[in-house]
């Protein structure tokens, strides 16, 4: 983890609610891993005061680029959205533990929703580079919000998109699709991010079918680096309930450890 000033290369609207930001930060790019995040200072003023956690969406090692894909939600992301090419972005990271891939895995199923899509894109890239096949079920409010589908395909995933507007995104429907994919593609591991209900559903399948899984979690953060215990959530670790820090013990956790959300 480093504290550094990245330079904004681009910051463009990719849907009415999301922006895609690319940052030149060559000094950090080698350290970055899918599933990790940066804690970003969105403004120089005291409001908003705190940093904002943002997953790594894309790592372009050769060019020294880190990308973010973010939903404009409140004050912090509004400030991010106001940044222009050439501006300096104060970044702290990479933070947390990324996704881990076992060498014996051949095919992964990824289920993501909403802002969780951003987190999953670099996982697909990483898996493909290790010769692992990836199948992604992406869910969002509108078609416009399924932004990373193309990039994920480019990275090598086979992608299905579901949206609330098409009314095919309900949990039961997703469950059926997940079971189908597991059956037809002999999936070795499950990955998810972005939805409590999908996480709960996937955890059920993971336990039932004994397929390991990983989930990237979100929680409000203070320090982002393990010092303040502001971001803890309860997890079930070996039968015992323990409070773990999303920022430093996560954000990626084993699916089986997650408590009913």
């Amino acid at each position, binding site marked *: *983890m480093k*504290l550094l000033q990245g330079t904004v290369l681009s910051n463009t609207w990719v849907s009415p609610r999301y922006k895609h930001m690319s940052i030149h930060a060559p000094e950090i790019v080698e350290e970055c891993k899918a599933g990790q995040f940066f804690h970003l*200072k969105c403004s120089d003023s*005291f*409001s*908003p*005061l*705190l*940093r904002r956690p943002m997953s790594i969406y894309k790592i372009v090692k050769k060019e020294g680029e880190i990308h973010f894909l973010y939903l404009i939600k409140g004050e912090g992301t509004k400030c991010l959205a106001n940044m222009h090419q050439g501006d300096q972005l104060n970044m*702290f990271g990479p933070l947390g533990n990324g996704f881990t891939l076992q060498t014996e895995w051949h095919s992964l199923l990824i289920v993501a929703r909403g802002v969780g899509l951003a987190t999953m894109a670099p996982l697909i890239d990483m898996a493909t580079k290790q010769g692992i096949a990836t199948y992604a079920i992406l869910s969002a409010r509108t078609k416009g919000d399924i932004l990373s589908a193309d990039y994920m395909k480019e990275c090598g995933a086979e992608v299905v998109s579901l949206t609330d507007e098409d009314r095919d995104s309900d949990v039961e429907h997703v469950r059926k699709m997940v079971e189908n994919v597991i059956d037809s593609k002999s999936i070795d591991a499950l990955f998810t991010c972005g939805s409590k209900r999908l996480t709960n559903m996937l955890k059920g399948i993971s336990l039932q079918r004994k397929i390991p899984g990983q989930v990237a979690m979100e*929680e*409000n*953060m*203070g*320090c*982002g*680096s*393990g*010092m*303040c*215990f*502001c*971001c*803890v*959530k*309860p997890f079930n670790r070996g039968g015992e309930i323990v*409070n773990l820090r999303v920022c*430093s013990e996560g954000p990626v956790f084993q699916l089986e450890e997650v408590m009913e959300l």
Partner: protein
Amino acid sequence: MKVSIGGVSMKNPVMPASGTFAEETAQIFDLSVLGALVTKSVTKYPRMGNRGPRIAETIAGMINAVGIQSKGSQVIRETSIPFYQQFNSPLIVSISADTADEFVDLAQELSVPGVAALEINISCPNLEDDGRSYAMDPTQTYRVVDYIRKSTQLPLYAKLTPNTNAITEVAVAAEAAGADAVVVANTMLSMVIDVETRKPKVGNIMGGLSGPCTKPVILRMVYQVYKKVGIPIIGCGGICSAEDAIEYMIAGASAVQVGTYNFVNPIGMVDIIQGMKEYAVRHRISSLSDLVGSVCVDEQTRIDKAAAY
């Protein structure tokens, strides 16, 4: 830049505020640059802390309701204290307890080599006084500080709460009971509600407000306490710059603690130390201690009774 706080020599007056600093900070900068190191408050036995969310942002501040998640004193003794010994800055261990007896046990257990002073967090609700904190009341403060005082040779810093109308009386009581310094102050009891869900934004309903929004209130308390106690004051509340730290010293603080700003700027304390050096040079101040309590006030007496508005 050197200061001595209740017998602990520090290379500069800047230290972290309890709960906003931990071993992880060593990955960001060399902890030896700090005046002192201060641990998160430890309890005797491991504690889970409060349920989430534990943090909510407010305007120019934040509310936390972490609830003293603690690994217990034994873990601290076996891991944290040895860890911090690699740095060339005195270690202050913050202790928290629900009863005076537990405070005494903790103080004895943690009076070990490697610990330069104990900070006693008497600003958290306790079990003996109906959920109030000792530091809300001068009598309770005297009682608990006096009791702990007799159980350890280490310098004691009493950390006071701003949630009292008697901060000077409480500080005077802490001094009388043998505290070597007072930390002014802990967080301000606060609340925020999400108007869409009507739920409080922290799981614990209420929490402690910290950050720059609190500075004018805590600074006033430092000013008031300085006029009444002889022991050093450690100012703590909303410090985000060298100027803020200097402002606290001018009001009466001998040293300062930085909390929330560590989250905003992970190398914030390093920047503050550097900025204070530059201020001293710019103002031709040979020793920062010359600043302590140097606020220019005329008609001092008239003022003490003056209306807030």
